[in-house]
């Protein structure tokens, strides 16, 4: 080896140059499709039958129950950062008032965590008549002093929402992933009727004032709650006598798609932020205080 070191060095250098210059940029490797499986699958897909095996009949119970609970933050939430509100300052930062980041709102006395969303994933039936609004508040989505007044807003699909602008300046309300991005003139309003479920909550922004941010969540059955300032929530009139699965979300959660993962063996909490519960008819089930550790919340 030693004797031919000069020549082999040349070769190595040559190889090195080719490797460095590269034939194509280094990209993350991707798995290739299984051609054989795809061929078989295509036969299934183009066949007229829905060939997928019988769908298990969902077990339905009777009566209605209520789910209650409370989220409390464990640890130091820190102080809310001021937002960079540098447009329309005569309205948006009146008298030097600073708009604050509201993504982690912890009640100082009760440690309650506000704006956690809890909703039923799949339900077999809905209690009639439908309540006016799942959250109990009137269905107005307002903005004032360059801030959305509801940081997290829940509604039933098809329920008309009065999108208002209480500012003396114009805003626009842009619900991402929806058909709604609408000018709202100063002091004006318009109606938005959500057409589809959101899955996890979707972001709402004002493009004129980019710091303005809120979330909306729409469910067909309306079984959705947003925790209040003290961290508490209540979902009434849930179908009883059948297993219900709930999804939990928080804006700053580190889980996938904002899912709030908790270490809670009693409720068999999953990393996807879900738990199951079966209610008895007329039962008001209180799942107590659920502790949210600082590690579940991102920066």
């Amino acid at each position, binding site marked *: 080896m030693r004797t031919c070191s000069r020549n082999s060095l040349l070769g190595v250098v040559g190889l090195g140059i080719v490797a460095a210059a590269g*034939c194509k940029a280094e990209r993350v490797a991707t798995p290739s*499709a299984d051609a054989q499986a795809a061929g078989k*699958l295509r036969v299934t*897909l183009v066949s007229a039958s*829905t060939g997928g095996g019988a769908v298990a009949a969902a077990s339905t119970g009777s009566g209605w129950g209520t789910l209650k609970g409370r989220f409390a933050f464990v640890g130091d939430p820190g102080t809310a950062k001021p937002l960079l509100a540098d447009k329309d300052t005569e309205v948006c930062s009146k008298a030097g008032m600073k708009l604050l980041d509201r993504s982690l709102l912890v009640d100082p006395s009760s440690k309650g965590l506000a704006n956690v969303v809890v909703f039923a994933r799949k339900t077999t039936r809905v209690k009639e008549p439908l309540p006016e609004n799942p959250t109990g508040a009137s269905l107005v989505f307002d903005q004032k002093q360059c801030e959305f007044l509801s940081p997290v807003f829940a509604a039933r699909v098809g329920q008309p929402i009065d999108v208002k602008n209480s500012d003396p300046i*114009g805003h626009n309300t842009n619900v991402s992933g929806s058909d709604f*991005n609408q000018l709202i003139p100063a002091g004006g309003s318009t109606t938005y009727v959500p057409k589809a479920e959101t899955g996890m909550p979707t972001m709402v922004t004002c493009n004129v004032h980019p710091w303005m941010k809120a979330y909306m969540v729409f469910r067909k059955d309306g079984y959705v709650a947003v925790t209040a300032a003290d961290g508490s929530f209540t979902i009434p009139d849930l179908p009883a006598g059948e297993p219900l699965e709930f999804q939990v979300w928080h804006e700053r959660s580190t889980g996938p798609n904002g899912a709030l993962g908790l270490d809670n063996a009693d409720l068999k909490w999953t990393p996807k932020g879900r738990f199951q519960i079966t209610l008895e008819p007329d039962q008001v089930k209180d799942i107590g205080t659920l502790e949210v550790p600082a590690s579940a919340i991102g920066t």
Partner: protein
Amino acid sequence: MPHASMMRSAMHRHPVTIIAILGLCLLATGCGQTPPAYFRPNMVEATKQRLTPDQEKQVATVLLAMFGTPDEPVCMPETGLDEAKLRLAAGPVRSDIVGRKNGLYREHCAHCHGVTGDALGPTAAFLNPYPRDYRPGVFKFKSTERADKPTHTDLVRLLHNGVPGTSMPSFALLPSAQVEALAEYVKYLSIRGETELTLMRAFFELDDEAQGKLPETREFLVDETLTPIAEKWKAAADAQIQVPPMPADIDLVASIAKGKELFYGDKANCVKCHGVTGLGDGQANDYDDWNKAIVEIGKEISSGSAKARETSTSGMSPDELSEHRAQLAWIEKFGRVLDGDALEPRTIPPRNLRHGIYRGGRRPLDLYYRIHAGINGAPMPAAKGTVPPEEIWHIVNYIRSLPYELDGELGADKPMLAKDRF
């Protein structure tokens, strides 16, 4: 190792020959060979959804079954796509048996829009604005309401006119059959890309019993996933915005004055983004939906890695430690995915209205559509609902007058440095 020893002895005697042989080997095996074209998975979404390699493979397999390959596209009847048109547009550039040009997409489009329609073609990074990524199924310039798909005619018109002010050229010189085939192929890539996104997001929605595997049934894959996407495309033709015609006896001078009032007023509020000057210098640090998605992921990664850095691993249980390591590996992988599968995000400047260049078409009707419905994927909001049609026509007239406006220091008759004007 007789071979190695022969090499060694040969090296003593003929060093030049050896280098020449090495060079030839490199030529034969290295850059020369082009692998067959393939659809690249949406790695940004796959990584965002933390899919496992098995799950990524399942999505690729389902897509292969439903859509075929770039060289041999197939489509499910539910898509309503014309496979003959797709075949004309797909594959490598070549002539078929009757001498007809095939492979139109790769000839005219793929270098910017990418073989996959992911806007990651080799030239994409050099363009401003970036080319359109078809996969989210969001299109800007069309005659339908904000969230609706463009009509086939919208796509054909866009191919015919190009997109003024961008790198997208006009394909008016192509025979109409070729433009038709390309429009169909864009729909195909978009439906494919949106199906892929939907499937990748569906893993999160799975129940735990599914054990991380999507059901490979016709009901789930076709009825629940593909059909709703295809239906939106089919519905576009009947979803055109009904535009009341501009009154024939309109007083244009008065209309322009009213339009100006609306432009600067709190009702239409155009001034906030398009600027007091109309040069597009108002609120200008926002992103469009395509870039915003990358910006948001970037924030998530940097906050995740900041948190991981300040987390002390001492005192962690083995479970916590492996979770911590998995999180670090995910952050590291996401960084590499963004390097290779995303372009550097750019802000979207509001249109400079003194140019007289309108990306979605310069007809008064085109401007009406933009103001009425807003621009899907862009910050531009819809005025419908709060601004009545006749007022939208006033704004259209004012905007059309802006490049020729004579009064004021930005008047078309005033000398001005190009850098200030554009």
